[in-house]
């Protein structure tokens, strides 16, 4: 793709009297835009590629799992071999719970709520965090001071404790309030990051150049600074998804989260706890394994994105 072009700027239409500026020779690198370049770098990260694959699989599972393998809470089988239910050998692939319901169906259905919570929480936190951080970093001064003290306040709260209390008092076992609570509590770290990025990017010459031609504040913030801050923001966002999934599992496990009848990975773990004593390891194992797998894959993705989205690296 490397094309060796000739001297530019010698178009015949040029004013014959004026001396034509002598052009550089073109040493065009491959003409890829930054997203293609980023993809090329990402592809070289094997773990990130595997992580991305697993993550995609989880999303697909969350969408079609409940349709193909519906989970019927009330379908209790009568031919149970014992209180521990069917083992993975007796009822492949993942065995059954104490009532004979398939753990695979439990996992496939739980994916939907867990992924939903993970992704929407991330969207809410990223939106709040980016806007707050951008305003603080771009305008600086008093506004910055006020917003950053607010961030300090949020960061000084013992997160897990507040999540539990808030989930009990405002959550009521419902999905939307739970997501709202997570979203509201998870943004401050990102806001700090975005502010720092804006503070440094604001002083870049291309921002000054935009100001010099008369571009307005809003456009400078969102067309110039934000796209250049996107790399770190995306990396943090992936980690927020993982955080939210773990957080859901945590509160649901402690019975502070979703209603017991909702199928999520966290609830599956919580319900499994009571039967662990009877040797029914597969019931908690598989939901737990899926949580771990999802979180690890997201972390790998984050690592890969961090390198891929850094425009300076051509390695």
């Amino acid at each position, binding site marked *: 793709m*490397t094309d060796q072009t*000739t001297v530019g700027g010698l178009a015949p239409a040029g004013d014959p009297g004026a001396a034509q500026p002598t052009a*550089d*020779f073109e*040493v065009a690198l491959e003409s890829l835009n930054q997203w293609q370049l980023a993809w*090329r770098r990402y592809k070289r990260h094997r773990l990130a590629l595997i992580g991305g694959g697993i993550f995609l699989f989880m999303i697909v599972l969350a969408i079609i799992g409940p349709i193909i393998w519906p989970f019927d809470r009330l379908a209790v089988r009568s031919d149970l071999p014992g209180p521990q239910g069917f083992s993975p050998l007796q009822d492949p692939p993942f065995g059954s719970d104490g009532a004979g319901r398939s753990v695979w169906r439990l996992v496939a259905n739980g994916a939907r709520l867990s992924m939903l919570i993970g992704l929407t929480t991330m969207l809410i936190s990223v939106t709040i965090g980016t806007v707050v951080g951008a305003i603080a970093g771009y305008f600086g001064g008093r506004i910055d001071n006020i917003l950053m003290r607010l961030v300090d306040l949020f960061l000084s709260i013992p997160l897990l404790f507040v999540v539990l209390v808030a989930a009990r008092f405002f959550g009521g076992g419902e999905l939307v309030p739970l997501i709202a609570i997570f979203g509201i509590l998870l943004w401050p770290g990102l806001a700090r990051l975005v502010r720092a990025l804006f503070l440094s990017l604001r002083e870049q010459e291309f921002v000054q150049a935009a100001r010099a031609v008369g571009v307005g504040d809003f456009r400078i913030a969102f067309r110039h600074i934000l796209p250049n801050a996107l790399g770190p923001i995306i990396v943090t966002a992936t980690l927020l998804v993982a955080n939210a999934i773990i957080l859901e599992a945590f509160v649901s496990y402690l019975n502070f989260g979703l209603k017991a009848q909702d199928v999520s990975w966290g609830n599956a773990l919580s319900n499994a706890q009571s039967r662990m004593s009877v040797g029914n390891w597969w019931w908690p194992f598989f939901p737990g394994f899926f949580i771990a797998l999802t979180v690890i894959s997201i972390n790998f993705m984050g690592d890969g994105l961090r390198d891929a989205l850094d425009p300076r690296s*051509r390695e």
Partner: protein
Amino acid sequence: MTFSTTAPTAERGPAGATAPDVLLDVRDLRTYFHVMDGTVRAVDGVSFSIRRGQTLGVVGESGCGKSVTALSIMRLLDIPPAEIVSGEILFDGRDLLHLSDEEMRHVRGNDVAMIFQEPMTSLNPVFTVGDQIAEAVVLHQHLSRKDAWDKAIESIKAVGINNPERRVKQYPHELSGGMRQRVMIAMALSCDPKLLIADEPTTALDVTIQAQILELIRKVQDETGAALMLITHDLGVVAETVHDVVVMYAGRVVETGSVDGVLLAPKHPYTEGLLTSIPSKGMRGQRLNVIKGTVPNPFNMPEGCNFEPRCPYAFAPCTVHDPRIEDANPPDVACWLYTPAPGSPIPPRARTRPAGRPS
């Protein structure tokens, strides 16, 4: 400069005779970088030598391989991505490329020292200046802590810093850029090296400070008798400081000679282009001469001479055959205008082509 006049470097065995006054003899050094897009031949067959107590200027534009050459000599490159593919670096008769890491550490500092362009990043911000110099002295000269500290003060005084007893207790950020470069020089000289490699030592400095530092380098060189390899892009600095010059372009040495010879009567079209594109008083009102185009893409080097696409004198063999400085007689320029190319004699007059090459 002592270039072997017999051409192919392979024939020059490791025991190839080196004149006794030659301190550093680099022969056919090749340093490549293996990166995602392919292999960059950053240094591609570079040979030169430095005599004891002399100053060699290495000139070239960014990316020509001059810094990589220095780092190869110091063996300070990260391997990988870098790889020293071939060559010999004979220092006092020993090939540095064959030393163990331990032996090389001894050479660095004791025998060869280097100063860099940006003194701030070369100094550790959490230690005082004196600590850093003393540490180097203790490491290399096995002096006691107390003696090393005295030596630090002494060497700081030697580079013209006032009030050395106070300065040694300061941290790098408390010093100005020029002061930091003095400290770097003090550090480099604290172990009395035989060779000092200075990589763009004054590029980050203002012109009045640059004058001070160049003055200082000259002075310490006179006093210690150390040889100096000065890497720079500034031909003015070269003219004032060095005895011999090596001009590099795209990983190769394209011209070499005494400073007067190269700067007053350049042979290679690139050297000539560099000299004539510097704005000077006589040029006012005229268009500056330019070297058309830019340096070649390292992944897509021209087939023949690397400079051919930009060369105003290029003629037929230049696009096909790659001129090597070793083939010239005397070996001072890599250009088919001075050495008969295979199958075509030196042209009576060069044919020229306008910008742009048929592809």
